[in-house]
Every structure is written in C-alpha cells, then in structure tokens.
C-alpha cells in the first residue's frame, strides 16, 4: 500500500489551522530585550558621527550600539552551501552595521531596550551625521565611467560579468532572408511579502550563542553567524521553528548575525530583533530587477537560427546571492529554445538600492518574461500562432544539457501545452478573439518555462537523515531540509512510510524543528530541491533502518533476515506473506530485552550528483477595459510536469500560491524609489500592490506526471516553477486582446495608460498641447 501519490492532509495542518503552532515569537522568553535598528535615511553616504546621548537617556534603554562599535569583519550573507574552493565562496561585503551607507535603509545603529516603546523612542532619538555621496539607482547607469562607486573591489560597480557562446552568431546573421525580432524587456524590483516577517532572538549559554530564527536554512545560518562574529562555527547553535513563509528572502542571513552580536554586548541576555513590514520590504532582500535586450533571427520557415541575449541585473547595495541569479536567467535561453548560434552576456551590477537576493524562481520569472514576450513577438512578426511557433522551436524530446546532465526524457513541453490548450479551449478562443473592436476586449496567451531541481553541479547537494523506531512501531524522522509552509514534512512522512513499509504516513513523526546541535546536517529549503534531494536520503536511511529491524527480527523469528520484509507496519515472511509480528511488538521487545536491548536507529548522508528538468506552462485569459486601463485575469491554468506528484493536494496548493505571485508580478507589484533621493516610496502593504483574492479568478493547477528516472520517488522540482510563466502569459493575452505588445512589468494601469495612448487606443483630446486646461 502506497502513501506516495495520495491526497493526504498535512501533518501540521490541525495545529496551524487552530493557531497552536509555535513560531519564533511564540518561543521568546519573558524578559527578552528588544533591539531596534536605525536605518540610514540616505541612499549613499559616509556616517561621520552618531550622537547617542539622547537615546541612551531614555528610560528602559539598555545599550546603544553603532556602526563604529561593530567587529571589523565583512561577511557574506547568501544562503549557499559553503564552498571549499575560495573562488566559489560568496562575496563578503557587509558588516553588522555600516559606516559606508550604500542604500536608503542600510543598518547604521541599534538600540537595545527593556521594552519595545523605549527601543522605538531610542531609535528616533539617535542623531546621525552623514557625508553625502552621489548615488545611482539604474544598473546600466551604474556601469558608466564616473558613476558613484559602491564597493572599491568592484570597478564600474560590476559584481560579475559572464558570457556564453555557441556556433557563430556574427556569421549566422549574415544569411540572406532572415527576419530580425528585437526587443528590450524590463522587470521590476519586487519583494517576497511572506506572511511572517523575519525575526529572531539570541542568547548565550555556557559561552555559546544560540539563535532561534525565522529562516529557511538553519545550518547555513550557523556558518554565517560564526563568520560574522569571528567565532568557531561550533560555538553557534541555530534553532528553526515553524515559519510563516520565506520565498527565498529567508534563504539569506538577515538579522541573525546582528541579533547574536547584540546578545554578546549585553552579557548574553536574550535579545530579539523583529522586522516590521516596512523593514522587510527594504532592509531584507528583494527580487533582482533585470533588463534584457534580445535579438532573435528567424528563417522564413519560422525556425530560430541565431539569438543574442544581453541582460543587466540590478544587485542593489550588497552582493547577497549575486550573479547566480543573472547567470541562471542567462542559462535558460539556450535550453528553452535551442538554436545553433548564440551570444549571451550577463552583468550583475551594484546600485544604491536594497540588496537583491533569492526569490522564488531565482531569475526565471525575469527570464521567462523576456523570453516568452520575445517569442510571442517572433510569432506575430512571422504571422504564426504563438503556440504553434513554440511547438516548432521549443526544447525537443531527448534534449540533453551537458553541464547539468539533464535530459528531456519525454516530450513534456508539448504535452503540457496540449493539456492546457485543451482545458482552456485555446484554439476556439484565438478564433473568437481575432477581430475585436470596442472598449472591452478579451485575449488569451501562453507562456512556458523550464526549471532545474536543486543546484547540482554548481553547488553541493547533500541530504542527511535520521530515523528511529519508536516503541509503538511508528518511526521518527529528522532531516535538515526544512518545512517553511510548503508542506515538506507531509511529503517526507509519505515517502518515509513507503520506504520503511508503514501502514500510514501518520505512523511517521517528522521532527519539524531543526536544531543545528541535534539535527543531521542539511542545506535547507531553496532551489526547489527538498522533495527530490530528501528522497535520496530517506530511501537510503530507510533501507538501513529496515536492515536493523529485520536483523533483530531474525533473532526473534529464527528466519533469515532476507526472507522477511516490512509491509503495512509488520514483519512478514516473504514467501507466503505470513505476519510474524508487528513493529510495535518488535520495538518493545528490542528495547526491553534483558539479554539484548537495542535502540533501533539509522542515520545516513546522501550526496546527490544529479539534477532534473521540471517543466510547465501557463495559459491566461484576460479581459481588458481599455478606457479604464485595466486588465483582469478571468481564467488562468498552470500545467506542470514535476514528475510523480507525492501529494496532489499539496502540489495544487503549491501551484496556486505560485500563480498568485505570478499574477501580482504580472499586473501590480513593484517597489518604487524616489529618483531624487533614492528613498523607497511604497514599502508597505497598502502602497505595494500585492494582488488579493479579489484580483484572482479561480486558480487552476494540473499535472503531467512523467516519472523522473533519477529520483527514487520519480519526483522533481515544484516549489518555484509555479511562479515562472504567469506574467508573460498575461502579457501575451493582453497582446492578443489589444494588439499592444508591452515589454515591461507590471502591467498596471499606469503602464497600460501610457501604452494604450501610444498605440492610439486612447486618445485624450485635451492632453494635446495647448489644451491642457480644456
């Protein structure tokens, strides 16, 4: 009997729905001090003085610490596995507090107080003197000679530039009769906006530092905290309780290092740092805004013969995940639509904006918007249906990528498109929406994407696992791959139940909380890796556990271990299926056997040296109210091939969440900055237009289950893929409805107004020159 593939309820569902689940704030002991951060109110400056007298005098304020007090240790924050190769280590470019302020919101000082109000008052009472520097917000402007320089080690603010070449682009485009389709595509700065803001608390015990944090990556945070404080790694213990989402923002060291250091400055007393929503938007991480320039050369038969891809990624003030995002975006093009002659260049550039880091999709939503917009433009230029154009040019079955080792084993792209097209009646709607006039117009669009599973071979992929047989015959399972709201624990329980041979996934107790002193080392939740990667160590550890159980059973039954197996929570004789004993009886006997007592456990590490292509597409149908400059999504369907679906209910939920993010990315979300000062304008949930339920139609997610041959459970990435293709599908639907191709996100009323005016769909007579006041 198999638990994998079943629509099971979440193992943490009841407690979460009833409010019992404990998040970091629920674990904070009484008497914990409040640390509040004073953020810079300059986009680029040198702090020359911080006057702390007034703040220190406020009753309740315990300690004021400034950028002049912190250890002189620059540290990296990216949540990447440590690399033994110094050339692959993350850039260490920030201190706990910074005298060189590089963006509006940088961390300058911290006030530690007995209560929250005193801490707030203390922060307001600090007086900071700055020597102002010129600043730059645009990534291409930042590359110009003479632009304000953020980091001395990076001339022209270029964190990294990488290129790839295949074939001979320059020669290929000289072929007579080619059709050129060129465009500039612009994606905005957006933020994760997970429900629970980041926060943490830290204290000292027996000379060591313990931090409880809302993070996706406890084991990596241990390393970063130790590095930032200049301590041995083993001196730090990180505890990760349940968290309210992360989407990549918490795949970075945020305020754990500062909080840990604060505790060391007040004699090891517990100190908490809680980010407000305003701080989360600006002083955590954001998604990279990327500008693309794409030139595609088509033959008259609609095949792509050459492509040039250039992209400029806005890193903001600190390196964080750095060039990994731009590199991943650049790498997507040649696999998505393989063509013989390609020239690709990508630059990641520092600017005086909030630091960009990991965010769900890690460069793919940006790349997908640019690529899938350009592909629709190609189809339109050549007069072909956009889905037909994709069928002709998209990654074919059998395609193999030498670097990742990935193979497109099935004809998945075409299968996904066929399924989505049938569900939404693509052909019928293309016909119905062909020649519309009038104010309200409808359109249908499609966009596709591919995604890797995990980070092999760029970084380490490893998963460790511990299982122990409980006295009631259930199994406790523990690993470093974290539950961050996506349902990982439930998937692990289902996989473990099958791998061990238990009756039900309810017979598996997944230890959800990671504690780096106790939990087997893992890398955490990112890169859509967890179900795939944990699958290897679950299978391997279950085999070890079963071996121990059967060896013990052999003592009791006098049968050879390999003549038995575990089925439905019992030891059975292979030959005839005879039940010898259930696991409870075995566990009790093993524990209390006066001549041979044994605590049956297994633990192992699996180093994963494979990757897997995940695929999918979005079909979006929109209604555009031209005069009101609004596009409403009236139907949207995602189709995914994530291999074998471990739990359809959770998979659908994962897809719905990603689609919601994609709708916001497509239509409304954008973090804005004042061009005159660099100040963030809308870092709150009112002015930052996260989409709401009222902006969504019913979200439809469905699956093509082509089993992944490299995975023990036939599964592959699904965490990030749902966020990748929605925005370009909406863009292409608006193009279908109105004939207007818009090359920047979000497609909000401001943008639609400007574009519809340009296209002549809106003609405000009074806006003409001289008629301004009618």
């Amino acid at each position, binding site marked *: 009997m198999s638990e994998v593939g079943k629509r099971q309820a979440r193992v943490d569902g009841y407690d979460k729905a009833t409010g019992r689940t404990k998040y970091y704030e629920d674990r904070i002991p009484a008497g914990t001090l409040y640390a509040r951060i004073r953020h810079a109110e300059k986009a680029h400056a040198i702090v020359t003085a911080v006057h702390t007298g007034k703040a220190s005098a406020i009753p309740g304020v315990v300690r004021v610490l400034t950028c002049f007090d912190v250890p002189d240790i620059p540290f990296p924050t990216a949540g990447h596995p440590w690399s033994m190769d110094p050339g692959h280590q993350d850039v260490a470019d920030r201190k706990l507090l910074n005298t060189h302020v590089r963006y509006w919101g940088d961390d300058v000082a911290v006030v530690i107080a007995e*209560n*929250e*109000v005193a801490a*707030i*008052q203390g922060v*307001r009472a600090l007086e900071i003197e700055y020597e102002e520097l010129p600043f730059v917000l645009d990534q291409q402007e930042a590359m110009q000679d003479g632009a304000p320089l953020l980091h001395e080690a990076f001339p022209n603010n270029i964190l990294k530039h990488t290129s790839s070449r295949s074939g001979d682009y320059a020669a290929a485009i000289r072929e007579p009769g080619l059709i050129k389709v060129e465009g500039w595509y612009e994606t905005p700065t957006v933020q994760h906006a997970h429900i629970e803001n980041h926060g943490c608390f830290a204290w000292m015990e027996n000379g060591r530092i313990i931090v409880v944090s809302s993070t996706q990556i406890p084991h990596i945070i241990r390393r970063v905290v130790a590095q930032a404080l200049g301590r041995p790694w083993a001196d730090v213990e990180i505890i990760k309780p349940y968290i309210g989402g992360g989407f990549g923002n918490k795949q970075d060291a945020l305020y754990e290092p500062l909080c840990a250091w604060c505790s060391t400055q007040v004699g090891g007393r517990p100190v908490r740092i809680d980010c407000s929503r305003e701080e989360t938007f600006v002083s955590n991480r954001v998604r990279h805004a990327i500008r693309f320039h794409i030139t595609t050369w088509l033959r008259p038969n609609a095949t792509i013969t050459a492509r040039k891809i250039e992209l400029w990624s806005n890193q903001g003030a600190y390196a964080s995940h750095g060039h990994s995002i731009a590199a991943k975006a650049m790498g997507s093009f040649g696999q998505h639509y393989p063509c013989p002659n390609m020239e690709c260049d990508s630059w990641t550039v520092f600017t005086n904006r909030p630091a960009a880091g990991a965010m769900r999709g890690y460069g793919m939503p940006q790349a997908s918007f640019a690529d899938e917009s350009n592909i629709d433009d190609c189809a339109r230029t050549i007069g072909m249906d956009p889905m037909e154009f994709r069928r002709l040019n998209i990654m074919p079955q059998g395609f193999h990528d030498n670097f990742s080792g990935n193979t497109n084993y099935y004809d998945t792209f075409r299968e996904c498109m066929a399924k989505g097209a049938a569900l939404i009646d693509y052909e019928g709607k293309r016909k119905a929406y062909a020649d519309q006039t009038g104010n309200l117009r409808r359109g249908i669009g499609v966009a596709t994407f591919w995604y890797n599973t995990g980070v092999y071979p760029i970084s380490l992929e490893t998963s460790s696992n511990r299982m122990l047989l409980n006295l009631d015959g259930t199994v406790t399972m523990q690993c470093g791959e974290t539950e961050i709201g996506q349902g990982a624990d439930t998937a692990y329980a289902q996989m473990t139940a099958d791998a061990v041979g238990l009756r039900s996934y309810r017979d598996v107790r997944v230890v959800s909380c990671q504690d780096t002193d106790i939990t087997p080392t893992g890398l955490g939740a990112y890169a859509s890796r967890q179900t795939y990667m944990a699958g290897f160590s679950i299978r391997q550890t279950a085999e070890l556990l079963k071996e121990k159980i059967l060896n013990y059973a052999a003592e009791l039954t006098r049968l050879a271990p390999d003549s038995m197996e575990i089925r439905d929570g019992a030891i059975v004789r292979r030959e005839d299926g005879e039940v010898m004993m259930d696991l409870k009886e075995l566990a009790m006997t093993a524990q209390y056997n006066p001549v041979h007592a044994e605590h049956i456990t297994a633990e192992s590490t699996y180093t994963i040296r494979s990757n897997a292509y995940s695929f999918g597409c979005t079909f979006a149908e929109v209604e555009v109210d031209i*005069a*009101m*400059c609004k596009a409403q999504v009236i139907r949207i369907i995602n189709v995914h091939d994530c291999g074998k679906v471990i739990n359809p209910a959770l998979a659908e939920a994962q897809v719905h969440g990603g689609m919601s993010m994609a709708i916001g990315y497509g239509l*409304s979300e954008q973090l*804005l900055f*004042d061009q005159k000062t660099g100040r963030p*304008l*809308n870092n709150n*949930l*009112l*002015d930052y*237009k996260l*989409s*709401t*339920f*009222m*902006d969504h139609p019913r979200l439809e997610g469905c699956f093509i289950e082509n089993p992944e041959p490299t995975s023990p459970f036939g599964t592959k990435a699904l965490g990030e893929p749902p966020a990748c293709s929605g925005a370009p599908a909406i863009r292409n639907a608006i193009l279908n409805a109105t004939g207007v191709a818009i090359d920047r996100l979000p497609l*909000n*009323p*401001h943008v639609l*107004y400007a574009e519809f005016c340009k296209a002549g769909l*809106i003609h*405000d007579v*009074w*806006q003409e020159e001289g008629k301004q*006041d*009618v």
Partner: protein
Amino acid sequence: MYDMKALYEAENVQDAIRLRLEHPEAQIIAGGSDVLVQMREGKRAGKELISIYRIDEMRGVTLDEDENVRIGSLTSFSHITRDPIIQKYVNVLGEAVDQVGSPQIRNIGTIGGNTCNGVTSADSASTLHALEAIVELTGKNGVRRIPIRDFYIKAGQVDIRAEEGEIQTAILIPKESYENCFGKYIKYGMRNAMEIASLGCSVNVRLSPDKKYIRRCRIAYGVAGPVPMRVPSAEAVANGSRPTQAMIDEFALAVLLDIRPRDSWRASKAFRQHIAVEMARRALTEAILRAGGVIE
C-alpha cells in the same frame, strides 16, 4: 505595543466632551484604523487618546422627524452597508463604504472617523459631498450643524472645535438630497481590495416623473483635489438635460474644468484626468439607468 501616553475611555457624549476639555491635546480615537496606524508610524507617537468607541448612543441609522437619514458617527461601514434604511433611501452610500479596505476594516472603521480624518481619498467622502450631507458636532455649547463641504477645511484638517470640546456625533442626509434620487459610486484603485482610492467619483440624479429629463444631478470626487469636491461645471451640463449619449460625453469632459488632480508617484495628473472623465461617464450613465431612465 503603541507609544501612547494615556488612554481615556468616554462613557457617553457628555463624558467625551468633558474629557476633551480636560485634555485639549488628546487625540480622539474611534475604531482606530487610522489613528493607530498613524501612531505606529510615529506621527501621533506619545499622545494621549480619548476613546469614544463605547458610546453606543452614537451608533446606528435612523430617520429623524423630518425624514432625514441620521447616521451615528460610530456606525461601522459594514453596518451602514447592511442597514435597511440606507438600502432603501441612500443605497449608493452603502455601496461606497463597502469598498473600504477589507471586511475586517469595514467592521471596525466608522463613518465618523472616515470623515474626521479629513483625507480626500475617504470612500464615504465623495458620496457624502454629492448628497450634501450635514455634519453634526456636539460640544459644551450644544449641537452645531454644518454642510459637509464646510466641514473639510484642507487636507487632513476638518472643522471640529477642540476648545469647545466638540466631537462629531452624526452625519445627516437631508430628505431633499435622497428623495427620488439614484446614485452610483465608482472607486478607482490599482487592485480590487485592500485599496485606497486613486480617484473616487459619486453621482446621483433625480429624473423628471416621465424620466425624460434630468431634474437634478450632483457629482463629487475624492482625490481630484486636496479635499473632496463637487463639480459644478459638469452638473450644469446635466441639470435639465435629456439623458443623451452626447450630453453624457459633454458632462464627462466638463469635469476637467473643475477638478485639480496632481502629479504624484501614485498617479500622474494626465492619468487621473483620463480616468476622471471615464468615471463621470460611467457613473452618470449607471445613475440614470438606476433611476429608470433610458440613454437616448
């Protein structure tokens, strides 16, 4: 935790007036959906608060002896939307306040707070202007009633006399304003919920008994200027006219003579003008249809 100096709870209107006179610097708080947000932002940090939220006599919708609709200032948005008197006589107001924020905000937020906050984007404000609502203030010298257009002095400032211990106790919709009138409110936001209006437009019309003429039309905007405003140039086009498409187009364009939207990062002036014209067109059309008219 909020940085407040003290909180005084008023038991009734007279108690509130007394507290107001005793603590002239204190901030009045009702539902708190504006005041607490401002306090958290530091704008009113360290202030004393006088809570009037428990004063039930200021809650509810009634018809007074002259059949004016009387809305207690503490009446919540969700209460107003569901109130049978509102639904029968001034349904447009119920529709307007149903577009505030979210269900939670509509349960806690009050129409008194919405108007006393003095912001041009308040969802009730344009409709109350279009209905020529009367604001009732009660202080140590008794009751003072003023037209809503006089109540709004400038952005963020309304005519409440703290030195006289005044609080706003009710908003009245005169019978003359709603009788045989049908209205439509359009909120323009960048998303469909949890939104502050980029522009709000409220229109109400009274047709002739044969429905061939517009006897009276009123139109008001929020966010078309620093305070909510009526648009007399457009009203002049509609008043006494037949409901033709040409008239509606002329009406909509005439809006531009009076409104004064500005450029800001939230929206450009050109965009707001464009939307204002389109909203006027749609709101008047819908109001005429609701009144039983036919667009010729």
